[in-house]
């Protein structure tokens, strides 16, 4: 909604010729979307409350037809929050697109993408247990790779040290404290 006024100036400064930004911009009219400057491939940022709407439009649009979710993951940016990253692909047009949404550290939650592609199911379970991101409305919110009871530690967060995993797994398995 704010797309035309506030964000329109930025894309023109970037060199987006040769990318599908014009098409993406058309499909995402009404969604706050902006391309990331300086990226090797086209990356579109959408705020978390609109990201599922945006993804669904990208999927259902006939020209773009992003019917294939290739990868879904997150990147911990420490004090800046976390990015959830969606890598899309179209099996018909063979185009690629990366969509990102920035989550606040106070509210690490975003709606589930399983309503758009079923492929998001396990990928979201993995992202949830590794980063502590909540995917609202996920049909099967169990852990995937981690033990079932390990729901309070998030190994891929930057704040999580490597060795602590072993300490948490059980007493006697961790490294001894200094001075012991």
């Amino acid at each position, binding site marked *: 909604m704010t797309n035309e006024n506030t964000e329109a100036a930025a894309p023109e400064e970037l060199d987006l010729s040769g990318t599908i930004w014009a098409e993406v911009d058309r499909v995402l009219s009404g969604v706050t979307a902006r391309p990331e400057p300086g990226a090797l491939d086209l990356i579109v940022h959408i705020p978390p409350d609109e990201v599922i709407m945006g993804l669904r439009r990208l999927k259902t649009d006939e020209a773009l037809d992003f019917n294939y979710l290739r990868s879904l993951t997150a990147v911990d940016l420490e004090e800046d929050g976390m990015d959830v990253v969606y890598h899309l692909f179209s099996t018909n047009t*063979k185009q690629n697109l990366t969509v990102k949404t920035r989550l606040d550290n106070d509210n690490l939650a975003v709606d589930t993408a399983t309503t758009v592609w*079923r492929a998001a199911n396990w990928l979201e379970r993995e992202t949830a247990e590794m980063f502590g991101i909540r995917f609202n409305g996920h049909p099967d919110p169990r852990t995937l790779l981690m*033990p079932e009871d390990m729901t309070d530690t998030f190994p891929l967060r930057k704040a999580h040290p490597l060795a602590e995993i072993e300490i948490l797994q059980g007493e006697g398995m961790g490294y001894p404290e200094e001075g012991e």
Partner: protein
Amino acid sequence: MVATPEVGPPGVGHPEAEFQTQDLLLNVGPQHPSTHGVFRMVLQVDGEVVRDVIPYIGYLHRGAEKLCETMDYRQGIGFMDRTEYLAAFNAELSYVMAVEKLAEIEVPERAQWIRMILCEMNRLSSHFMFMGAFGIDVGVFATPFIYAWKEREQLIDLFEEVSGDRMMYAYFRPGGLAWDVPANFKQRVREVLESTKVGIKDFDGLLTTNEIFRARTQGVGYISAEDAIDWGMSGPSIRASGVNIDVRKDEPYMFYDQIDFNVPTRTEGDVYARYACRMDEMWESVRIIEQCLEKMPDYGPIMPEKMPRMLRTPPGEVYLRTEAPRGEYGIYLVSEGGNRPYRLKVRSACLSNLQALKDMSVGHYMADAIIVLGSIDIVLSEVDR
């Protein structure tokens, strides 16, 4: 091994109560030969028919992604080998190409040809492994396994001559190769290829036209093209459903655009189609290697002239994918500058393929669930990372 579900006995006095059957929960794995590694699935069976499949993974989770964040780019190569251990060249390739793209390194031509040859031979060895293991799943006992092993051994011997290791090569480096191939490389590849061709023909004779094999596999484990796309499947598993996606054709990397090859597809979408796709792919790989041998220069550098001792990348991110034997092997690499990844994510083809297992096996006999699992050719170490 067998546990009763919580549905409880049917109510007394109900007219249909006596005829109601009780579903059983049957645990398969994690330590079971037919699960190709440490994979566990709980089958809900009604007599012999599968009603539901609940897969459990994570037994081989090693945190490779987290470990790579603490190591420099060169050290990360070893972890990639250990994700996809049956096709380690392909796994390394994605990783080093991602680093190269980020650091803007130009790889010498000869190194690229060698990489292509090794990756395609790795595809052959991986598919031989599939043929052998799949034969056992189907119930042909040891014959195909030993035949496959014989051929795979020749390929692995060659990999050992080149890289010094049979499975965990760590031979590709950002920029090129660790060292040059032996002087008789081309001749050896040709020798091995001759024996491989005989091996593929043997398999064709053993399995492809075998009536019992066909009766066992045709019409089992069907998945439609729409479902396969929706689940994010890739590789031969999706091409067997008639979806023609192959990274080598869609976004040619290295010199795949200079090579004449086909992408075998099938439309049946069943277990047999997935087998047949792999079989056809093996012939295509042979064709690719033969063309590569023609085009590969005999002499030339294998690393760029100016490579820094400590490789650093500028800040940025890249998603790079290549076509591994099991499907699309992707590396999502985020860098903040410096000599190590800020975040490294491995997009596992097997993980996405495995998600569709339930769709493929529900409604079939329990024994067929095993060959459905076999037909998507999982490597659990790649699924769990």
